[in-house]
């Protein structure tokens, strides 16, 4: 039965939860397909995650391999294909707990970087899992900055082979998933040398383990890089190459080829390849960032209506902790961000689909903008969502700290997204470079891409709000965000100019402005997110209360952003001190409004209990019973060798002689 404290929350929903779920899924039909996939996967005991909090790294790895193997069978059984509508829900249903994820990256890199001949040779083998692939780019000493990679591939004309080497310890490949234990092949990125001349970084297919007995190939040293904060199921690996020879045909050669005589030939445009890289940053947002954020909100908010603590009114029962303003102030803005990021993700996906179609038509005009948006939003969304999950964790008090709450593993997983696919600070600086360039162009009267046209219009003036209700007008707050973004970008551009004019070298001026540049890039992304949220709300159907509640969330998202960054808005007096008090008042009022719909708003994310895998966040709210039952399953309650070995001698008086 459902805990009455949770049941009562659901009775007063101001909107239709099922309708909101359909909106999030992109239609009721999508919801149906997703639920069917989740049901098929989660009813299969092989995919169970029941014991995952109790397992060692070795056990987690083994389970992931077992699941990956079983998944092949399952897909076949269910008639799911990689191009079918079910495919994208499989990962979500598994909560990502499956091996061979890098195998997909391996295949994609061959499809994108390989010649037709190479694709024809390798892709069928990989599809049938005749071999297991990985993708070896990052080195121990080198990450985001690719030109710095040190692995070498020297062409030997005599044998028509490349000789691959790891010249020093910092050049060792480090981190690639599936490489520590599973992979038989990997795509290695190395500096290409022909006749002693370096041609830069190129990709090579290298076999690292025997297809017969899985032992390491000659010249290969590989293994697991050891325990991490999460991803216990994944064997992130290291790889050292010592005079490993591979045939000339193993260099992926869609864009660059080494001919038998050692002639280096460049062919075609790499731009589409570059585009593929940037799409990865957008494609990770949904599964790796939004899902854990939404799960964390679900767990924390449900728990906050079940947990009672202290009294709000004398003589009454202890209050639900969600009734405390401070708890609302922690959780509800995170809930609003989950929706804001969901909608900006839709916007980005659509933009990238359009970009892809243009690029197919050989029109590369959108590329710089897409690159800037993907970098900036990857950084802003991952950073913000990571912080949000941690807030959810800490808002659950002591029980949030138990692995059984599900929150620690959501947190340790999402925070990796701030680093992989480009370190966030570096990405924001790439966005900033684009913004500065556009600002200069706009100032010179040249055309700029659609997302930055606001840089062309000179902004001044003051916020027109007269009372706190005015701050619930999307025009008012969107304008304020735009103003701040414009101010930060223009003032940083001016500062850069000043430095250069006063004789600073360009790179030096840039480094001296990087703190400001990062802030400018964030402000830009924040502005676009608010603007998109407001525009999305406007287009929603007014039926079933959906638009009204989304409007509240949009307001909350926007006002929370102002409330927690007041200085940026006050700085040039765009918002006055008196207006800032109105912002605060409106913001705090909204908390109480959204509080009433908090549980229905997380219910709409539609996670099954098995997906959440949380003793605190289950749909029925039976928090304490579940916590107690799960704890009893802990292996620490089965045996304790420590008693016989250490406690017994201790308790039996061995110390009293002292």
């Amino acid at each position, binding site marked *: 039965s459902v805990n009455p404290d949770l049941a009562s929350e659901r009775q007063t929903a101001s909107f239709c939860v099922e309708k909101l779920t359909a909106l999030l899924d992109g239609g009721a039909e999508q919801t149906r397909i997703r639920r069917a996939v989740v049901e098929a996967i989660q009813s299969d005991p092989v995919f169970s995650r029941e014991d995952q909090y109790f397992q060692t790294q070795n056990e987690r790895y083994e389970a992931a391999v077992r699941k990956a193997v079983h998944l092949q069978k399952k897909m076949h059984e269910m008639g799911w294909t990689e191009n079918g509508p079910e495919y994208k829900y499989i990962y979500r249903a598994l909560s990502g707990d499956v091996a061979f994820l890098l195998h997909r990256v391996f295949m994609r890199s061959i499809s994108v970087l390989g010649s037709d001949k190479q694709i024809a040779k390798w892709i069928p083998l990989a599809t049938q899992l005749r071999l297991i692939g990985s993708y070896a780019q990052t080195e121990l000493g080198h990450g985001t900055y690719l030109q710095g990679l040190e692995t070498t591939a020297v062409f030997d004309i005599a044998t028509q082979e490349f000789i691959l080497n790891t010249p020093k310890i910092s050049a060792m490949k*480090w981190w690639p998933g599936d490489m520590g*234990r599973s992979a038989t092949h990997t795509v290695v990125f190395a500096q290409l040398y022909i006749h002693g001349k370096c041609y830069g970084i190129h990709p090579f297919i290298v076999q690292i383990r025997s297809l017969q007995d899985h032992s390491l190939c000659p010249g290969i040293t590989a293994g697991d890089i050891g325990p991490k904060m999460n991803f216990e199921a994944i064997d992130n690996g*290291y790889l050292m190459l010592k005079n490993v020879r591979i045939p000339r045909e193993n260099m992926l050669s869609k864009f660059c080829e080494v001919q038998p005589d050692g002639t280096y030939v460049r062919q075609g445009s790499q731009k589409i390849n570059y585009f593929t890289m940037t799409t990865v940053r957008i494609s990770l947002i949904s599964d790796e960032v939004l899902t854990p954020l939404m799960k964390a909100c679900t767990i924390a908010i449900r728990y906050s209506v079940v947990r009672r603590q202290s009294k709000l009114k004398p003589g009454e029962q*202890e209050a639900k902790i969600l009734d405390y303003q401070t708890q609302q102030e922690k959780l509800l803005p995170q809930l609003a961000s989950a929706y804001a990021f969901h909608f900006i993700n839709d916007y980005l996906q659509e933009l990238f689909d359009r970009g892809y179609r243009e690029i197919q038509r050989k029109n590369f005009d959108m590329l710089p903008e897409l690159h800037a948006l993907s970098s900036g939003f990857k950084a802003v969304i991952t950073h913000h969502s990571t912080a949000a999950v941690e807030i959810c964790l800490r808002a659950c008090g002591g029980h949030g700290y138990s692995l059984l709450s599900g929150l620690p593993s959501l947190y340790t997983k999402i925070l990796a997204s701030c680093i992989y696919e480009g370190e966030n600070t570096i990405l924001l600086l790439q966005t900033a470079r684009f913004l500065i360039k556009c600002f200069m162009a706009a100032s010179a009267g040249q055309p700029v891409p659609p997302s930055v046209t606001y840089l062309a219009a000179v902004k001044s003036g003051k916020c027109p709000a007269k009372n706190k209700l005015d701050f619930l007008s999307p025009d008012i707050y969107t304008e304020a965000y735009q103003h701040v973004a414009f101010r930060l970008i223009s003032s940083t551009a001016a500062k850069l100019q000043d430095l250069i004019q006063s004789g600073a070298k360009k790179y030096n001026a840039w*480094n001296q402005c990087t703190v400001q540049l990062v802030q400018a890039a964030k402000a830009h992304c924040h502005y676009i997110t608010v603007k998109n949220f407001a525009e999305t709300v406007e287009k929603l159907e007014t039926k079933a209360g959906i638009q009204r509640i989304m409007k509240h969330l949009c307001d909350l998202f926007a006002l929370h952003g102002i409330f927690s960054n007041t200085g940026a808005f006050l700085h040039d007096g765009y918002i006055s001190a008196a207006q800032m008090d109105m912002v605060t008042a409106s913001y705090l009022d909204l908390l109480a409004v959204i509080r009433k719909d908090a549980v229905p708003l997380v219910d709409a994310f539609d996670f099954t209990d098995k997906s959440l895998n949380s003793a605190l966040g289950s749909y029925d709210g039976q928090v304490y019973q579940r916590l107690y039952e799960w*704890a009893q399953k802990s292996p620490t309650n089965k045996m304790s060798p420590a*008693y016989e070995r250490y406690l017994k001698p201790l308790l039996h008086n061995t*110390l009293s002689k002292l």
Partner: protein
Amino acid sequence: AAAMTVNADLRRERAAATFQPLLLTHILDGGPERTRRRKEIEALVLNDPDFQHTDLNFLSRSQRYEQAIRKSSLMVMKLREYGIADPEEIFWFKSFVHRGRPEPLDLHLGMFLPTLLTQATPEQQDRFFMPAWNLEIIGTYAQTEMGHGTHLRGLETTATYDPATQEFILNSPTVTSIKWWPGGLGKTSNHAIVLAQLYTQGQCKGLHAFIVPIRQLGTHEPLPGITVGDIGPKFGYDEMDNGYLKMDNFRIPRENMLMKYAQVEPDGTYVKPLSDKLTYGTMVFIRSLIVGDSARSLSRACTIAIRYSAVRHQSELKPGEPEPQILDYQTQQYKLFPLLATAYAFHFVGAYIKDTYHRISGDINEGDLSELPELHALTAGLKAFTSWTANAGIEECRMACGGHGYSRCSGIPDIYVTFTPSCTYEGENTVMMLQTARFLVKSYTQVSSGQQVTGMVSYLNDLSRQRIQPQQVAARTVTVRINDPVSLVEAYKARAAWLVEAAAKNLQAELNHRKSKEDAWNRTSVDLVRASEAHCHYVVVKLFAAKLSEVTNAAVRAVLTDLCLLYALFGISRNTGDFLQAGILTSAQITQVNQHVKELLAVIRPNAVALVDSFDFHDVHLGSVLGRYDGNVYENMFEWAKKSPLNKTQVHESFHKHLKPMQAKL
């Protein structure tokens, strides 16, 4: 790895420092003699083969618990063997043995024994203290329940007195009343001090403490009527058996209620305790430990991140030149140096609270408790302020180490998971902030009614004098000189005054609109927390600035002054809205502050490594491959990884179990 020389980058960094790190270490330790003694104890532990073991990162939870209990028992013996009895020296010894981690006897040593000393009658001490001292009795302190934490009055466990048998009958009447979380309860302890609602003669007399045996001496099996176990895996605290305890009509003799203060007589008559303000003292003491822990944990994370940033080279700063140290990037400095300054600030705050506590607790014995309420209120907020800041700071340090920070070999994940519960235990932080706020509002009300207040809140006295003028208070008070720590203290003071006043006024407005006090308080609580934070921030800046004048060595004072300025200015740049809205600083000044922050980053840059060296963490204690003193990071990451459990066999068993059969089938 073979003995290696110190990495050239780190050698260069150390040679370029403008001060002697050892002198700064002395300041942090509280004098050269304390440093000497600390290192002596450190050597005692680190050179002892009994305390060596495999890297804990490669052990399962059960194995980690086993290692911890082994070391704990040895530790207790050796402490006595060496005659170490000073609390601070015991603390050092313990943290070297356990490398800064919790251990299963923490609650026995830190709560069970002290509670016996303070709350047991002489007869009870005779029965329990020596066996507990000799570890025949191992105890824990069972307060928190599954459904109840910070709000003690809500606890549900009952102890009903039965005059017929002269026993208390203990019960856990609901699932939510199961004792949950106490350290050492799951597997280690055979006794617990249990907090329960006392019922006698049909009346509830509130919470009292009872000594409850939970496991059979000899077999260590749970006693009939007792259900006890481990609460399962957590984010950190792997070596700690946090436990649950459920009691079902479990009887204990009347003499097991701790009766130094309150008593139940044989016939069931309840004798009230004399008022006991001493519990305030214990809370202040524990919170001062958490402030110190905030400083230490953040210092460790900074040490790792800053040394690694001096060793790591990446990208291009100047075209054509070799990849620079990442510590040369302004964005990296902006992430790390304010945290370094914060770590120093918190060290001084921790030392201040400890000293004040010792001074006042001297007074307690003489009966002068007048300063205690303020210290109690102040430490609540400072506990929250420092632990929140350090918690976020540790994560920032980890992020600043890029991908390698995510590996357990960096040591930062461990620092984080060990530290983060301090935001919750010993009083949830938001609740702590609101306690401080209550004191601030009370002080404000006193001032409004014409009384003077003293101590750290005395700035509120100025408010009444200025009330005759219509503008907001702070708008005209300070002329801030951004190069002068003393002037910055004034700016923080003005901000605190402004926020305290705003919160108090909002509270009053709510009270005027609504019936209930509690409701008004709740509707103002976001403002109240902000006011508390501003007050604590002011206290930290003030204490840091005050510390500068005590430093005699000019070079050390200079570098500490840079850090103090950075701490204060960075805090302004992160909260510009408050200073602007209150009219304390103009936009032009904010721009100067932001600029000066960046200049200070460059000033501190040459001393960054020396400043973390001054924290003087031994490599073993630091537990980080990235933060090694010698900077030989990459070689040792490889050595470390080779020991990973997944690397035990060349071909993992999963290959034979799953991969091979599948490949054969396809």
